[in-house]
């Protein structure tokens, strides 16, 4: 275990996120327990700094933005999720949101760490082209992944909405119903997240488009199609919600579905990584 090894640091960050979930639920259940409340935020913040360090170390290793394989993309999305949560926390607070965000970040973080096939060393391959050496495409990728983080948060808020709604319709005051935020607040938060996420995704497409005009050979038409489809999906969702044509549970379900589509399609939108299925067992270059 070393603080100079990206994966080691990311392991600790993921575990801290899972600790935050435990503290978060404990602080919610024992509402007067200030220690648990502070411990939740502290665990998330420390986890976030460690995750930032882990991604930074990986960035140094590949000399660019670490978005080249599924492991890096998942780590980057969960990092975006946490940074969005920490920023939004200053603006408005939703009970249990921190716990669920850190739960998602911890769970997917560990899944990505366990699955060695997702973290192949694409940068040591001879066929690897340093796409991210271009600052424009790096900016495009980081903004796009950041918007994915916001959409992840939107999916969590939408799931919270559906749980609270179900609890209200079942006419029982279970633990979830009692502690989750009101559906009115969740609905408002989801709308604001959708607005911000769509803006970031649009910005990333504009930046990516500028690069594509100069180097169309880097982008496959399939990637272009998937990206625009996703952008169109979120934009349509935004306008439907804005015009009050899609709201409530249908809106929440659509937001979750779109996020699942975004995650599933993520593997397709990276056109430059090759031989992604080569597994690694350690960080020592295998081919050297």
């Amino acid at each position, binding site marked *: 275990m070393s603080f100079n090894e990206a994966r080691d640091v990311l392991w600790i960050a993921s575990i801290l996120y899972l600790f935050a979930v435990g503290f978060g639920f404990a602080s919610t259940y024992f509402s007067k327990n200030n220690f648990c409340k502070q411990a939740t935020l502290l665990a998330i913040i420390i986890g976030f700094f460690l995750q930032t360090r882990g991604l930074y170390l990986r960035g140094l290793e590949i000399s660019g933005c670490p978005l080249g394989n599924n492991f890096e993309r998942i780590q980057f999305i969960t990092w975006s999720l946490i940074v969005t949560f920490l920023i939004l926390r200053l603006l408005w607070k939703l009970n249990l949101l921190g716990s669920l965000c850190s739960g998602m970040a911890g769970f997917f973080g560990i899944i990505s760490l366990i699955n060695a096939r997702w973290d192949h060393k694409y940068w040591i391959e001879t066929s690897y082209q340093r796409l991210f050496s271009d600052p424009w495409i790096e900016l495009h990728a980081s903004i796009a992944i950041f918007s994915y983080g916001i959409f992840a948060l939107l999916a969590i808020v939408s799931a919270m909405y559906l749980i609270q709604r179900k609890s209200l319709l079942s006419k029982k005051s279970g633990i979830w*119903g009692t502690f989750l935020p009101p559906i009115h607040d969740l609905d408002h938060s989801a709308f604001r997240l959708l607005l911000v996420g769509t803006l970031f995704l649009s910005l990333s497409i504009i930046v990516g488009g500028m690069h594509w005009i100069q180097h169309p050979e880097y982008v496959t038409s399939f990637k272009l199609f998937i990206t625009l489809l996703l952008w169109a999906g979120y934009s349509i969702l935004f306008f439907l919600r804005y015009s009050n044509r899609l709201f409530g549970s249908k809106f929440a379900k659509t937001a979750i579905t779109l996020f699942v589509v975004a995650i599933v399609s993520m593997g397709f939108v990276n056109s430059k990584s090759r031989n992604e299925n080569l597994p690694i067992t350690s960080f020592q270059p295998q081919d050297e």
Partner: protein
Amino acid sequence: MSNSEKSKSLHLLGSSHHIADLAVREKISLPQDKIDEFYNGLSALPGLDECLLLNTCNRTEIYGASNNGFSSDLLHKYLSDFRKIDPDFLHKHSYRHSGEKVVRHLFEVTAGIDSQMVGETEILGQVKKAYEDACERNVSGKMLNRLFQKGFQAAKWARTNTGISKGQINLGNVLCEVARRIFGKVSNSRLLVIGAGEVAESAMEAFKSRGSQAITVTSRTFDWCPLSRRKPDELAEKFGGFALSFSKYQESLHHFDVILTSTASGRSLISEIEVRKAMKHRPAKPLFLIDASVPRNIDESVAKVDNVFLYNMDDVSAIANENLKSRIAEVERCRNVLSKKAVRIWEQMTHHAMPSSSASQSTASNS
């Protein structure tokens, strides 16, 4: 038992809802105008240094502290004589505790776990009032002072660290809790009450106490609400709200977030078509409907409309009962901890030197 323990003790004679039904409690309970007379006789009982009367609708309890071999039989005889009830009848419907058990009992009373509605907080206020009354009369001394101060602390601990007060059990408060889960702040939601039964009044009271400024009342018979025997405009005035003409409420449904019906009309007052029409004006904003009438005033099919939450009295009562169950589940845990605390406090009380009766009374009067 040490000498110090022998020389001082606590006594309790009481009757409560656990052991006596309402009719019996009425016989044992002390009328307000007899309290002075009761205290005069009680404090004059030989051997009783300190005393305190807790007299509520659910319990009548006499707490006493003595320095010598005082017998609680005296308390029993005094109460039966004072209330002119048969001693055997009182014996059957009362309980007696002494020493550590008194401490434990008081802790359970102040914490609300001995109450009829487990976890209710009203009892703590009543105990505080009884204690203040005893202090003003100079009948509570060092021992009872310490006992009751510790009782208040125990109550605070129980409410903070256990779930005995979690969840609302009053119907008006349950409605507010559901409204909170839908709209967030209850103070921002607009309430329309159609008719005005007891539940409606309870709901209005709960909404008002949470800062709701927009309470509107309407009724079929605008001049008279048969269920509450009040005029709607009187009710509106009582809760700082507005009275709405019954002919206009259907076209104003979309203005309200929470609508409660409580009439004896026996027919449908709000149909699915009317709700769908109202929701067109507020598609993304939820609507909370409560049908507190039997037979129902709101069509059941209204629940199918998106963003509409329809509850009837059975639903609200089920939540209240569910909350009560979860409180009861916490009682045993709370009781165990309070019991340990009671043992500790009793040990502290019995291992300190007792001041004289006069000194005790002086302390009480200064407290």
